[in-house]
């Protein structure tokens, strides 16, 4: 086999090139991944639904296109896993919730449609924390996903199914959504790369809303180059999403160009944060060393409002969620549990349909928006959100990127934090900043603790500067701080 690597160890771009050059057919590639999922996902639970038939159909269409002399598209024949809060036409969208029981998406999310148009093969839908609310993928109504690095541990969340699928070699590329770290934190815990693009880069049309002013769709994959390739496919103005930016998608070469002249700010508060595991801190320092050695100018930068991020995030996100989830009422689609009257039907349906964490957040958000409390909570959170963004604007006058840990810890055992919501919320203490400010951020592996559990290095950049974040990430990736090999059983 060319390059010596099995298909499932290849980055998306390399797999696409093999398919484009007819070394391997798209159908063979799809069968390879479907076979691995069938054999190995039982112990991981990355997928909620595998669409083997649909995947093989579109793989054969890719092959037919190439047979007919058609030019290979940017993701020709590349299998992709899709988080199950993104609509894929004809498949159920569950959001890992009972409340959407029976709902089948009538059309593709824009990001999914663009993947298909670029030749990608949709393998199926991946597990998540219910409605993307959580940091461990344990809040799924259909059972947890396990971390391929150590199946006794969580993969992070909420895009834990997508992260585990890539880490286990079930797909070279997956889509996730990131409201407060939901792409980057699981990428960090699973030892892969995740990109949250600038707010508005990628259409949210067809993404089931959680925190509408924070949500962004992005890729999980193995390399910065793959993230750039995926972004070049899914980004760009969409008339179906009024918040999508009127910009062309960036080029696939976005991660190229190296570190020359790059000014790197190490976020003081993120590196001195309470709860930061020493092994994670050491791995992050090693990555900073890689950037310095690679020619970047490194300095320390302060974001004084960092400490308020989690509080602000949990007010804004839950407020928006309390409204966004009101539509799941049993009237038009999904679960309906009859009650004594209309109010009873609402109560029964939502009581049985939603899990504990979702209910907790709906209650928090409803409270934060209520008359008499909105000024003290929601409105105040909006003001502090503005101050946090101002902090970043100031910092980005001095530096091109801001770096630090993606999450304070490595992957933790299943069940460890599930009864302690506050501890769980703190998993995203460093991640939420980028969502609140709408800026792009990447998590790239930067090493492992003595047990071999990966640590993630976060690179944030100013709005629309995914290129800077991905160039820094590419340099860290090239240093090989985390061994590239797939974990034991998944080699």
């Amino acid at each position, binding site marked *: 086999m060319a390059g010596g690597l099995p298909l499932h160890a290849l980055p998306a771009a390399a797999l696409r090139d093999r398919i484009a050059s007819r070394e391997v057919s798209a159908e063979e590639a799809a069968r390879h991944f479907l076979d691995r999922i069938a054999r190995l996902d039982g112990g991981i639970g990355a997928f909620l639904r595998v669409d083997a038939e649909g995947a093989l159909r579109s793989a054969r269409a890719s092959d037919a296109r190439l047979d007919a002399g058609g030019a290979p598209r940017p993701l020709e024949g590349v299998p992709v896993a899709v988080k199950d809060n993104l609509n894929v036409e004809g498949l159920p969208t569950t959001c890992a919730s009972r409340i959407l029981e029976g709902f089948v998406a009538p059309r593709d999310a824009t990001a999914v449609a663009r993947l298909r148009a670029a030749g990608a093969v949709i393998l199926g839908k991946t597990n998540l924390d219910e409605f993307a609310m959580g940091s461990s993928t344990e809040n799924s109504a259909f059972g947890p996903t396990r971390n391929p690095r150590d199946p006794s541990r969580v993969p992070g969340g909420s895009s834990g199914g997508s992260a585990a699928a890539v880490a286990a070699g079930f797909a070279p590329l997956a889509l996730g959504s990131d409201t407060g770290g939901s792409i980057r934190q699981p990428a960090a815990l699973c030892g892969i790369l995740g990109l949250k693009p600038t707010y508005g880069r990628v259409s949210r049309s067809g993404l089931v809303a959680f925190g*509408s002013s924070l949500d962004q769709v992005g890729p999980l994959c193995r390399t910065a180059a793959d993230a750039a390739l995926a972004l070049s496919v899914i980004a760009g103005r969409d008339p179906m999403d*009024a918040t999508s930016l009127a910009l062309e998608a960036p080029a696939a070469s976005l991660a190229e160009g190296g570190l020359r002249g790059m000014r790197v700010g190490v976020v003081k508060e993120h590196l001195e944060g309470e709860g930061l595991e020493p092994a994670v801190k050491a791995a992050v320092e090693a990555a900073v060393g890689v950037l310095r050695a690679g020619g970047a100018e490194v300095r320390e930068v302060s974001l004084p409002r960092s400490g308020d991020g989690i509080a602000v995030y949990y007010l804004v996100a839950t407020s928006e969620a309390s409204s966004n989830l009101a539509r799941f009422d049993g009237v038009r689609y999904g679960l309906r549990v009859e009650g004594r009257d209309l109010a009873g039907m609402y109560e029964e349906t939502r009581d049985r349909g939603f899990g504990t964490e979702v209910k907790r957040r709906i209650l928090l958000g409803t409270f934060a*928006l209520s008359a008499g409390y909105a000024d003290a909570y929601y409105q105040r959170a909006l003001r502090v959100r503005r101050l946090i963004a101002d902090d970043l604007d100031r910092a980005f006058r001095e530096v091109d990127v801001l770096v630090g840990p993606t999450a304070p810890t490595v992957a933790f055992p299943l069940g460890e934090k599930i009864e302690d919501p506050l501890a769980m919320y703190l998993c995203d203490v460093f991640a939420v900043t980028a969502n609140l400010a709408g800026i792009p951020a990447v998590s790239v592996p930067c090493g492992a603790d003595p047990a071999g559990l990966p640590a993630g290095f976060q690179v944030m950049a100013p709005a629309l500067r995914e290129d800077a974040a991905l160039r820094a990430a590419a340099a860290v990736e090239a240093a090989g701080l985390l061994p590239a090999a797939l974990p034991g059983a998944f080699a």
Partner: protein
Amino acid sequence: MSARPPRLVVGVEVHVQLATRTKAFCACPVEFGAEPNALCCPVCLGHPGALPTLNRGALAAAVRAGLALGCAVAPRGAVRWDRKNYFYPDLPKGYQITQYDHPLCENGALALSDGTRVRIRRAHLEEDTGKSSHAGDGETLVDFNRCGVPLLEIVTEPDLGSAAAVEEYLRLLRDRMILAGASSCSMEKGEMRCEPNVSLVRGDGSSTGISELKNLNSFAAVRAAVAFEAKRLEEGPWHPAGAAPPRTTYGWDDAGGRTILQRTKETAADYRYFPEPDLPDLPAEALAGFVAEGRAALAAADADRSAAAGRARAEAVRLGLAADQADLLLVRDLTGGRFAAALAAAEGAGAPAAEAGPALAGWFLGPLAGWVNGRGGDWAALRASAGDLAAALGLQRTGKATAQVVKEHLLAGEWPGTGGDPAAFLAGRGLLGGAGEEAVRAACAEVVAANPDVVAKIRAGKTAARGALVGQVMKRMRGTADPGAVNRILDGLL
């Protein structure tokens, strides 16, 4: 106790449906009377993942409406959208997209004919809900065709002091909306929904509760409901000055002619308004184009109307019409062109304008208007054609039918709904051709013989009493006698 009667205080909230081809936040068509749920998509049905996108046509119509009401457009610098959160089966998303504290239009006014300035506090854009209907078996059905249709909610200050003023304001508002091309304001189609807030205030500042009146489907209903409620509120209870009066919702029972208690608002509903994150703010700069276009469109509409008024004035002079007749028939064209068509047909048949104009104006604003109002107010119900009406006028001019016969037996009867040859219609009922000299003379003689006291008065010089004799003769003749002949014959007998 204050000696003077309490003062009626009314403010009005009106929802007008903006005249757009598609809904406010999706591409579904706006149509009245379509099959239930035929005009829906994932966006207006609130499917997971669906997002709203603003229909710029709705924004343009709302801006024109605001300008037509003298409002400032986006005085706070940007147009912002908010979510109003509540649960109801006809509200698919669990929230309505509306404008809470940054309304599109503010601080307008309309002047009533007596000079009262009705201040318009605000006018904001929002989406309509679906429509629930409760089937007899306890099932509730929901039609989402209306869901997402753009509405402009127009709120006045409490500047109206009588039921008549409320009606005049609403008629004026409708006229401005139509002029601006913002809405066709058909109340029958629910394109204009009026909710007056009614209370009474006494000289010492004490007041009744505020009654919010709903389900008012015509101007007549608005007027009747406000008048009824004003009377009902006189019984109190009265709340001292400075206390926040309670608000209560009443429906209007049109058949029973009374208001019906719907609910008392003990606590204000908490709608948890917050900025709609799915729709970016529209900066004032982005609105400048809409405002400029709106002003131009409104100026053109005003100019059109002025020109039409000018033409109407000249036409009124030619026809010898009164100013109010000309306004109704030629400027506002209440009959949808039917007056002008009948006039043209009559002139074509040889009737002089100065004769046909006033006669037809009298018919259209008198018996025909009454006939149409008795049939839902739609002039389309009138089947008598321009030619039929010209023929009727011809019968009257040639003395084949008296004015009274035409008015009472032709225009106020079945004929307007069928049309056809008026001569045949009247002949079939023995009302055509006028009465013969002998018949009139016989009738006059009978009347003189039967009223010796009146005859004595007339002979004593009270000539005014003669009208009573003429009336009696006409009555005996069922209106078929020529009044000139009656007078001539009576003169001879007296």
